């Protein structure tokens, strides 16, 4: 499993795709951070993180599209399947490689929030009076980062699953984009629905609406469990795809 993990991580940076992903992610995050906090003159980072989720629509498929599709096209999956590595080992190796790059980039993008702290410091000095609270809320940021990472991992496992279904990278990317888009947009669509029952169900399913708790600094266990289960279910499905192909 570790060999596959290493190989995948390395291959992100042999091809341009790893650099493109990191570059676009950091640029988009910086831009969104500027608009949602500095230009909007607020210390509230909730909007920034919510917008970050929407950038995943394009960014996560970049990471996951080739993971299995390329192996299938080059017939190299035969090598992995006949090596003394279990299917779980193969799937998790790939998942963790994508996850490492993703989590790493998210953590690096936290640099964007430092200007807020710097501004808060100067503002606090300039005001003589003891203002109750100036500056961004650190617990809120931490809970948001945790939420964003968990949602990203869920999306990665969805992308991984889609990639295992096709040998065309482009098809894998497009389908993943569609799925992530639907999952994120559900929350917005919900506001236009007036039937309570439907709203309740969609609200329960929606990834974005569960994220609102995180933006207020609440570590919502049910949401964490929900995101982790999505990852788990799609990883399991990917394993099943390979299991089934053997028997096909």
């Amino acid at each position, binding site marked *: 499993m570790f060999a596959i993990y290493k190989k995948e991580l390395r291959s992100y940076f042999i091809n341009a795709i790893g650099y493109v992903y990191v570059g676009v992610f950091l640029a988009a995050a910086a831009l969104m951070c500027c608009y949602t906090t500095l230009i909007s003159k607020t210390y509230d980072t909730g909007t920034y993180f919510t917008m970050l989720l929407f950038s995943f629509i394009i960014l996560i498929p970049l990471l996951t599209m080739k993971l299995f599709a390329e192996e299938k096209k*080059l017939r190299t999956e035969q090598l992995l399947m006949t090596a003394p590595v279990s299917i779980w080992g193969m799937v998790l190796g790939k998942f963790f490689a994508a996850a490492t790059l993703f989590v790493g980039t998210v953590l690096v993008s936290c640099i964007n929030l430092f200007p807020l702290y710097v501004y808060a410091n100067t503002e606090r000095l300039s005001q003589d009076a003891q203002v109750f609270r100036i500056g961004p809320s650190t617990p809120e940021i931490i809970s948001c980062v945790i939420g964003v990472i968990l949602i990203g991992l869920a999306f990665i496992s969805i992308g991984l699953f889609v990639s295992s279904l096709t040998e065309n990278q482009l098809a894998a990317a497009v389908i993943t984009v569609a799925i992530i888009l639907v999952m994120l947009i559900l929350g917005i669509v919900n506001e236009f629905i007036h039937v309570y029952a439907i709203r309740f169900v969609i609200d329960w399913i929606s990834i974005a609406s569960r994220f609102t708790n995180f933006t207020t600094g609440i570590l919502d266990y049910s949401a964490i469990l929900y995101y982790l289960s999505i990852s788990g279910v799609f990883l399991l499905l990917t394993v099943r795809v390979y299991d089934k192909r053997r028997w096909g």
Partner: protein
Amino acid sequence: MIKIEHLVKNYGTNCAVDDISFEVKKGEIVGLLGPNGAGKSTTMNILTGYLSATSGSVSIAGFNVLDNPMEAKKHIGYLPEQPPLYMDMTVEEYLIFNYNLKGCKLNRTKHLEEICDVVKIRDVYHRVIKNLSKGYRQRVGIAQALIGSPEVIIFDEPTVGLDPKQIIEVRNLLRNLGRDHTVILSTHILQEVQAVCDRIVIINKGKIVANELTENITRAVENTRRFQIKICGPQKEVLAMLRAKSGIVSAEVLSQRDGDAYTYTIESEVGVDIRKNLFYTLAEKNWPLIGMEALGMSLEDIFIAIVDQSSNKKKYERRSTKGRTKVEQEIAKNILEKTTAQDSDGFSALFDSDDNKKN
């Protein structure tokens, strides 16, 4: 070392492998032969655990591939039909990846160096696989299969795409590997099988139609006598005489005519040398024999005969009068019968008795 029992693989309603059983002993080189779509690759994929069998069992070095895949796979080196290469890696990176993937415990630098020397890829060691020629890619694929020095090595058409010199090198390599590894290879090239393998297993339409030691088949080929002879004399009478003569299985006249001489092809019975006898007979009749040429029978002919007979007897018989000769037919039939009857000595016994007759 390898034990295959009643292996069946269905793709939907299509039966790719139909009840195959055979065993490969330690240190044996077995050639898997068969026309396209016969089920060779499927069999190999099942052996290596890439596919699962519909029913039946496969065990490698005592480990069942289905029940204990991890242990079984540790004992296998596999080169699929299309070498599984990552085009954007260098040869070095690729081999190191495989070394790690297989969890190999040998000294890495030394082991990889040895393998590179064996398959002669030292000079491309630091190049990107994408830029290598097909022959080199194939060799990198072979190198990959040798990593970890597995006890069982399975090659699916290892010499495809290599130049003649490389083919000979790979054959020598296979022969050397056969000394301390068990090797299964599939191929279309019959000389290869003849040159390398201890035993030949012929598969057609998912069934084993022959499972025979190479030397037996080679002997069968050598024992056949087919001649092209040129005789001056009345065509019909000569032909009648040839057909009536004991020891001759068949005689045909060819359309070539050279003065008053006609060319005939004759086949003698297996193990009977009729040349002298024929000469005296012709001399008696006063029909000068002005040319005689032995026509070799190739392994190909036997292979085609076996496959044809196993797939469709009627079709085969119809064609046989034109193309195949009776002796080939006979040999193919014997091999087929032997395989069907599971009578281990039938085939060899046939030729033993012929040898006795000759002596």
